[in-house]
């Protein structure tokens, strides 16, 4: 009987330890999430103003605003960038991003896959491990798996620059990015977007606005600025993919760990009831033994 008691006691201790760990992980993720969110917020004004400049220029250009990044080519070679986190224990977060990538491959690029014209660039260990193990026939670029170690604009900028160079050299005809879009601490979802060629949005400009904008001086000229502006905007949006994923990872882990801590609490409650029942049973047993013994002596 005391064996069962000890077992329950040990389990309570072990669950408590686990709970402490999950709770600590939750706290750590909460702190990291705050910092990751800040990085996103800080980049917003920069990105907004870049886009405003682009709109200014586009509305001043007569005719098409074709940079080499906007040209639709027949899609022969495809690159998919899979942005996941380095660590797990974040619920279904990484799985969802990988699934998103797989779905796109299944739906649109089955042929490219078979012909070896599909390449995956993995950022983050989780996606890399997944595709290396299960889809070893896909070309994998592994140079940037650990990009999350340095989230500075410079370091991420070289990755996106590299992708743009390859695109211009026609080594890829289309580039997609699968990443974790960050909405808020509780809501993140996996998303797939087309990175290159740029999906053109026609800016809506009123006549009055056009009048005002016509006064702009462009130095050296619109085309040159555009050719420099577009890569900068692309770099910025690529950077945002990584920042978003980073924040989402911590948001997802926070939620997952919060659930785990709650579960542990429930488990402890249940085990405690079991423990008390077992203890009570043991005591009752002992008493009845003593009473039984005394009765035998008297008789």
């Amino acid at each position: 009987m005391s064996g069962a008691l000890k077992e329950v006691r040990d389990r309570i201790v072990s669950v408590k330890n686990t709970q402490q760990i999950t709770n600590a992980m939750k706290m750590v993720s909460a702190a990291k999430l705050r910092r990751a969110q800040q990085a996103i917020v800080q980049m917003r004004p920069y990105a907004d103003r870049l886009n405003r400049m682009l709109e200014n220029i586009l509305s001043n250009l007569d005719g098409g605003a074709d940079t080499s990044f906007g040209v639709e080519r027949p899609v022969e070679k495809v690159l998919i960038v899979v942005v996941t986190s380095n660590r797990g224990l974040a619920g279904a977060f990484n799985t969802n991003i990988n699934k998103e990538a797989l779905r796109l491959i299944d739906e649109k690029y089955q042929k490219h896959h078979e012909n070896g014209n599909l390449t995956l660039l993995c950022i983050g260990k989780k996606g890399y491990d997944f595709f290396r193990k299960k889809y070893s026939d896909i070309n994998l670029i592994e140079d940037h798996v650990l990009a999350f170690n340095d989230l500075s604009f410079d370091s991420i900028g070289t990755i996106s620059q590299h992708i743009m160079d390859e695109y211009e050299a026609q080594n890829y005809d289309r580039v997609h990015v699968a990443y974790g879009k960050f909405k808020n601490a509780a809501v993140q979802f996996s998303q797939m977007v087309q990175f290159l060629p740029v999906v053109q949005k026609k800016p809506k400009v009123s006549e009055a606005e056009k009048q005002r904008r016509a006064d702009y001086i462009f130095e050296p000229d619109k085309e040159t600025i555009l050719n420099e502006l577009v890569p900068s905007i692309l770099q910025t949006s690529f950077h945002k993919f990584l920042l978003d994923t980073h924040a989402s990872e911590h948001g997802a882990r926070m939620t997952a760990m919060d659930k785990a801590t709650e579960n542990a609490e429930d488990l402890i409650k249940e085990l405690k009831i079991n423990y008390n029942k077992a203890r009570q049973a043991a005591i009752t047993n002992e008493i009845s033994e003593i009473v039984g013994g005394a009765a035998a002596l008297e008789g």
Partner: protein
Amino acid sequence: MNLLVLTPEKELFNGTIKAVKVPGTTGEFEIRENHASIVSSLRKGPVKITNSSGQVETIPIKKGFIEVINNEVSILVQAEEAAE
């Protein structure tokens, strides 16, 4: 006039200034009060800000863009990290 200098990571300058000199792609130029609206790309070099009390502050940049509308100057740059 107001100047805002932004990098993707942070705000480097925000305030009232007298003048700012920037390294334009085709040559250095200075923006003063009531400058015409302009958009220009910038190359590597120093951005020299003369603040309202006449002191000069220098921010080295790698590349970037400047936009001026109605005495609102925005400079979007990638800052030269090493020089900070």
